[in-house]
């Protein structure tokens, strides 16, 4: 089976973010980058499917040169080859444009199964996977938390609100967007990290693949206001505990 998994490199969300000089995005310096968390589940599921049925698993990512580091992790997890779309201005592109770039690459490749994360941690639009499927004319199932292939049909479960799941079957080729908890993403082993260095990782210029116009623009990125009247306590733990107990006695009835 020919399988594609699309991943995004994002900043570690624990980072101290700073707003970039143009006020429209975060400042990239001093950030640690990693694989979008949702995409780790997508890669793991893609690798498991490939291990089950054989074939070839391609990992694709768009962005500046540094995203190749994240792609190497996917290769070390078990992807066979990497396609890097070189683009230094990815942050200014909207979901329709990004999906269009991937669709332009994927349209002649006859992938039987495509995985993406259900959303990215930085932009969180949750659109790219579904748009990609629409562009390729494939059925898409979003937010999957369970996945199986029986040789004929994909059987998946979608996560709904309140812990309820919807059971869904679909004939391939199809696209799935992966929710947290779908599986347990593996850690790459040292031998697999070494092996990954020898795997094919090609770069394509984005100009070759971008066909659509941009439909939305970010005007401003900023920090939200904290709860008004919210108190921030800092200091040594014993005195912090005393201060917190004092506040709980004053403001709540739970210590009565």
């Amino acid at each position, binding site marked *: 089976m020919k399988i594609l998994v699309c991943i995004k490199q994002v900043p570690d969300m*624990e980072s101290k973010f700073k707003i970039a000089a143009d006020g429209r995005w975060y400042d990239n310096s001093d950030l640690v980058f990693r694989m979008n968390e949702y995409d780790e589940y997508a890669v793991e599921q893609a690798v498991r499917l490939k291990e089950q049925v054989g074939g070839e698993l391609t990992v694709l990512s768009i962005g500046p040169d540094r995203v190749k580091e994240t792609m190497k992790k996917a290769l070390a997890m078990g992807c066979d080859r990497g396609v890097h779309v070189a683009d230094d201005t990815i942050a200014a592109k909207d979901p329709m444009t990004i999906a269009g770039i991937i669709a332009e690459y994927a349209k002649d490749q006859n992938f039987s199964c495509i995985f993406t994360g259900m959303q990215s941690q930085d932009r969180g*639009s949750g659109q790219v996977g579904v748009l990609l499927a629409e562009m390729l004319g494939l059925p898409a199932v979003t*937010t999957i938390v369970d996945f199986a292939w029986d040789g004929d049909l994909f059987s998946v479960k*979608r996560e709904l609100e309140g812990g309820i799941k*919807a059971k869904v079957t679909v004939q391939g080729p199809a696209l799935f967007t992966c929710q947290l908890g779908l599986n347990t993403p593996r850690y790459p082993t040292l031998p697999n990290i070494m092996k990954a260095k020898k795997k094919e990782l090609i770069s394509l210029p984005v100009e070759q693949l971008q066909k659509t116009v941009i439909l939305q623009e970010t005007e401003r990125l900023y*920090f939200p206001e904290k709860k008004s009247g919210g108190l*921030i306590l800092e200091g040594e733990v014993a005195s*912090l505990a005393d201060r917190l*107990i004092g506040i709980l006695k004053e403001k709540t009835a*739970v210590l009565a």
Partner: protein
Amino acid sequence: MKVLLVAEYREGKLLGSVNELLGFAESLTAETGVFLVGKKDNLPKFSGRLYLADVDKHRDYNPDGHKALLLQAVEKEQPDLIVFSHSSYGWDLAPRLAFALKTCQISEVVAVEGNSFVVPACNSKLRRQVKSLSAKTVLTLQVGAFQASETGGEPTVIDINVEAAPRISFTGYEAAVGGGVDLTKASVIVSAGRGIGKPENVAMIAGLAAALKGEYGASRPVVDAEWVEHNRQVGTTGQSVAPKLYVACGISGAIQHLAGMKKSEFIVAINTDRDAPIGEVADVLVVADLKQFVPVLTEKLKAL
């Protein structure tokens, strides 16, 4: 301004989220239409046109069919905005519609700023103001971000029907993992987040909960990692709670978690990160390493 709101229907019931969509439309003083794949005996209460398709025929989940129906409603209504809840139904269907109409979609809107929309970024640590460059715009609204409408009224029903062969077969629901702990009855809840670091530290959180005569809960990553059972999960995919005191330990504050606990009467967050989004709802943010702070706090509470 004309808006078309996309209501949701699941397992025989109209979902209440439509009232937030109606509230959003009212805040824009927009002419309002609603689209629903549902039933005539369970309609949203508003004054305007309701485009209704029969759920018995089109099912609860059938993206190909619902997209075709919605496109018909858009064709008749010609709205400027097509508005969904940012829910498992909305984020699934909205991009399909945006692609069919070749329009911009802006996801998880929390506020309107002039002609632009504000959405969260970077796990809710930041806000992003976005402008649509297309004539029509598709929006999904963050659940809980807009005040529900209580205006009421009677819609004028316009039946719609269109055949589209579904490529996806919806075969039924699987009920939530039930039983165990009913957190909604606890007056104090102490919840563990990813910041607890390892499963052995769940006992420390349970110990603090016991010292406060409450229950312990957990955020999604801790449940996904199987450190705590699902029946203790707080958030949109777990339980929604509103205790007298909620203590969030090492929880960054993803919207799915905040939606399940922000109605608590008093919220204490313990986190090493001052900028964690949990700070937006916390009455007190204790900036500390919970592994050092929680045992000390627990001992002092026991000594009271």
